[in-house]
């Protein structure tokens, strides 16, 4: 735990002071990159050989209605964790919504297979302990790609471990049906996720020059969005999380010209080599 705490809290000695450099540094900071890239390559291979073929088969063989039911049930199992963490974050409405969804879908939705609650207009939320820790001010720590399980920051992993251990629905499945059932449920989650993103992942992987960097950037942005609960920028603020400042790119360029002005000839020569 001390090791984890150090990683979570430890600042980095090389943290830049210039605001632009600092922004870039925070955005792409990845102290474990060599390790992460190796595990990422392994996961990519595992995806191509195992997960993707399973997902293709799953979406070919299993009817859409059944797949939606399975997805609903897997989401249902996570409800207790969302309720707990919504409460820990002071998100009363989200806790209430999720509690309402859980009851509604358990009773009226065949134990969670039919999402009656969404039809009734109760919105779906997703909270986890990693998000709670973020709301409490804990830093994300390093980006860490795990074998077979994919990327997350350390704060997210720690939260995930604790969530998994304390989730009552997970405990129930493990004790009533054994570890095999737990394994099947985990595998099904992975296949459910992959089958819903077949084309998307295939296309991104094919078109990216550095898929590792693409996934890392996507993860971080998506996670930040999750933590702030997708809240939209308030009012008219240029500092809102929603806007990119395209006019302040630290570039000596007239952004409105047809073509950019030339860089210095020396740089051009160097770059041409």
């Amino acid at each position, binding site marked *: 735990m001390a090791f984890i705490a150090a990683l979570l809290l430890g600042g980095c000695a090389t943290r830049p002071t210039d605001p632009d450099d600092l922004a870039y540094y925070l955005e792409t900071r990845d102290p474990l990159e060599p390790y992460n890239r190796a595990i990422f390559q392994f996961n990519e291979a595992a995806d191509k050989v195992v997960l993707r073929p399973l997902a293709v088969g799953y979406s070919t063989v299993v009817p859409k209605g059944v797949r939606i039911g399975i997805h609903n049930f897997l989401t249902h199992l996570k409800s207790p964790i969302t309720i707990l963490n919504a409460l820990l974050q002071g998100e009363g409405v989200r806790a209430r919504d999720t509690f309402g969804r859980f009851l509604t879908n358990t009773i009226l939705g065949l134990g969670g297979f039919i999402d009656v609650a*969404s039809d009734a207009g109760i919105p779906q939320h997703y909270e986890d302990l990693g998000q709670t820790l973020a709301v409490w001010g804990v830093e994300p720590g390093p980006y860490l790609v795990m074998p077979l399980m994919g990327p997350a920051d350390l704060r997210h992993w720690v939260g995930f471990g604790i969530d998994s251990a304390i989730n009552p629905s997970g405990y129930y499945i493990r004790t009533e049906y054994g570890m095999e059932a737990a394994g099947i449920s985990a595998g099904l989650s992975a296949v459910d996720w992959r089958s819903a993103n077949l084309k998307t992942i295939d296309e991104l992987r094919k078109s990216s020059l550095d898929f590792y960097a693409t996934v890392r950037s996507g993860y971080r942005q998506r996670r930040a969005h999750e933590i702030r609960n997708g809240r939209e920028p308030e009012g008219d603020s240029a500092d809102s999380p929603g806007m990119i400042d395209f006019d302040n790119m630290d570039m000596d360029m007239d952004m409105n010209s047809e073509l*950019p002005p030339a860089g210095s000839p020396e740089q051009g020569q160097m770059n041409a080599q």
Partner: protein
Amino acid sequence: MHNNFMFHMTRRRAIAALGGAALAAGLARQPARASGTVAKFIENLGDRAILQLADSSISESERESRFRTILNDSFDVVRISRFVLGRYARGATRQQMAEFIQLYEDVVVLTYAHLFASYAGQGFKVKREVGDPGDRYKLVLTEVEPGNGRPPIKLDWQVKVNGGSYAVVDIRVEGASMAITQREEYTAVLDKNGGDIADLLAQLRAKAAKLRADRANS
């Protein structure tokens, strides 16, 4: 057990978000509730894309050329291209920048145009729009029904305001910006090769050629 695999939520969300942008430009709209003209611009863009691109009767090369026309009409490709090169943009010569813009556009067209071929036509709803203080940019917030039992996807369009005309500069899906993601992709390549723009261009040329070949074989 609870156990979603980690990536069930993380990679799924992150990647779905990114890739969902592929579909973003072509989503049919539901009856408009927004009144602003920027919102209209986005709605019209969606209408036009779905009408022209999700047409099963046209060839893939026709789809690509229509996609390119829409891209050039409605997106500020030059501004986006500079942004995605990040701090390396100023090291590029005029010729390199011009070629980068062309190749960037090629890769975007080759990646996304054909996704409209099988597009099933879900709708997006404009929720509201926000502006920056100088009204140089507007953000149009929309939501898409994914139609697979999942909750609505948040889709935000950042639009550059040029007097009375508009151009999209970024699409964000569930908080993930295409421009930022691509900037991280290209700067990762440039970090690795010591800022060699010519090498990046060579990689992009090879990528575009490969995507073209894949398309021809499919």
